[in-house]
């Protein structure tokens, strides 16, 4: 009891470092941890995620494309590969984001106690959510950037606006990472996790990925238009084919809402789980 400790730092000085009990402004340390941990990742799994849409492009685009010919989109005729490539670009962003934000998050949450450890430090739940989502987004962005290169090599970027597809896929990856982590944070068993894959596959196949939305009867069109991937596909397709329209802002808005909703739910869930 003889030891005198440093005086308690003045209240005001500390206030500036911490915004409430949710956020310490240090999400980058969570990202840093993720990057360091990827050193021990199974790289075969990571790389396979990138190749999946590439294989679809080759088999469907080149193979099936010979039979299909051209497709009408945004008032112009484009080759079949040029029609599906932007959709697959959106899919690759989704895949990368989902890979990290679902199974990896599930493992860290349920088994590795990674978040429990993080939340005994000065990090808040929003730091953890933001950091982990950023990491997932990063993987989506890397997949998508690789796919963009493939598209360029095959001459499937038809307009200069294709360059804007890069920020667009970032947005898409962010949206899926955010919502993916939010949903995963409510999952308790492996069976529940399988439901995510069960929902993703039909969304991938039916979101106007391989043919225009107009083939569906109107009620089905409404359903597809409610799903996130359709908005991503339409946004990217408009940019790579050069068929721009003001309606594309709705797609952007859709993703902004998705990001916000995901962050709010993830943060609340982390707080409920580890800061009860």
């Amino acid at each position, binding site marked *: 009891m003889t030891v005198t400790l440093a005086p308690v730092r003045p209240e005001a000085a500390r206030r500036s470092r911490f915004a409430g009990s949710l956020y310490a402004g240090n999400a980058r340390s969570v990202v*840093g941890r993720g990057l*360091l941990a990827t050193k021990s990742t199974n790289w075969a799994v990571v790389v396979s995620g990138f190749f999946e849409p590439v294989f679809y492009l080759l088999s469907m685009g080149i193979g099936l494309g010979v039979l299909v010919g051209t497709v009408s989109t945004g008032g112009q005729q484009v080759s079949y590969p040029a029609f599906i490539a932007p959709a697959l670009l959106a899919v690759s962003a989704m895949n990368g984001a989902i890979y990290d934000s679902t199974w990896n998050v599930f493992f860290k949450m349920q088994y590795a106690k990674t978040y429990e450890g993080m939340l005994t430090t*000065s990090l808040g739940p929003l730091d953890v959510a933001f950091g982990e989502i950023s990491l997932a987004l990063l993987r989506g962005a890397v997949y998508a950037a690789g796919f963009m290169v493939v598209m360029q090599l095959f001459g499937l970027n038809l307009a200069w606006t294709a360059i804007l597809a890069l920020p667009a896929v970032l947005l898409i990856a962010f949206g899926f990472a955010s919502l993916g982590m939010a949903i995963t944070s409510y999952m308790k068993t492996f069976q529940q996790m399988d439901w995510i894959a069960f929902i993703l596959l039909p969304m991938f196949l039916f979101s106007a990925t391989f043919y225009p939305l107009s083939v569906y009867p109107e009620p089905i069109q409404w359903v597809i238009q409610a799903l996130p991937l359709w908005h991503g596909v339409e946004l990217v397709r408009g940019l790579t084919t050069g068929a721009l329209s003001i309606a594309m802002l709705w797609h952007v808005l859709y993703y902004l809402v998705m990001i916000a909703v995901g962050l709010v739910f993830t943060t609340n869930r982390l707080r409920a789980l580890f800061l009860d």
Partner: protein
Amino acid sequence: MPTSVITANLLTKEYKGFAAVDGISFDVAPGESFGLLGPNGAGKSTTMRMVGAVSTRTSGELSILGLDPNEHGPEVRSQLGVVPQSDNLDMELRVRDNLIVYGRYFGIPRSEVGKKADALLEFAQLSDRAKSKVDDLSGGMKRRLTIARALINDPRILLLDEPTTGLDPQARHILWDRLFRLKEQGTTLLLTTHYMDEAEQLCDRLVVVDKGSIMAEGSPASLIKKYSTREVLEVRFGSERNAQVAEQIAGIGERIEVLPDRLLIYSDNGEAELARITAAGLEPMTSLVRRSSLEDVFLRLTGRSLIE
């Protein structure tokens, strides 16, 4: 007079109507080593989680370094070091990286955190394992790494939840030595344990907790003095006969506790009581005279032993 670094007043935590912690009050002074002693399920870990600002209280008051942990979670946590009951080291990172990354969570600059990590590896006697995988460490090494990790932010209070549970005796002694050094350096320790010897080794002062409430408070020596005798005579007559013999020898010693496997006779002179028992024509299978411990205090206060 230094102000308390932890003040709990009628601290309560309820889960669905069940009070895991039921109105406990205590103060911890700077540099003090304070223990929460009690059996599993007494509410020790729940108390630790509230002090650690990872659990919000249902009612009562709690102040950590002058701050309310409900309101200032990250600020409070930035000044604490936490050693949880079960290790939650980052298995995806190597030993040294565990310290570096944890330090980064506290916002410690990259340029400083490396030096700190090396010094702490030295302290935890793990310098030669810096590049090892966490999985390859022994239980005792993992615990030392967890303690090193908890020190990365120069905490003003170190919270230890059952620090040596599950370790072999040698590993426990190494760990106690490390903790004792921290104590000598003036680190405030708050620890929970259900081991008497641990509490006696490490705590300046402790509270005995049972069923979410505090039963007694004081230094280990003062608690023993207050609630027990100087010595204890343990005799065994076989599980069939213990209770029956207890009636026959009633009046010997200050107090007799009947346990399933043995009788405890509380007295300031154990040998003299043993002589009286044999003089009465009773021949115990085994007998042992020992000093009173906190185990006896707990038995006296609750009528139950700590480890059942």
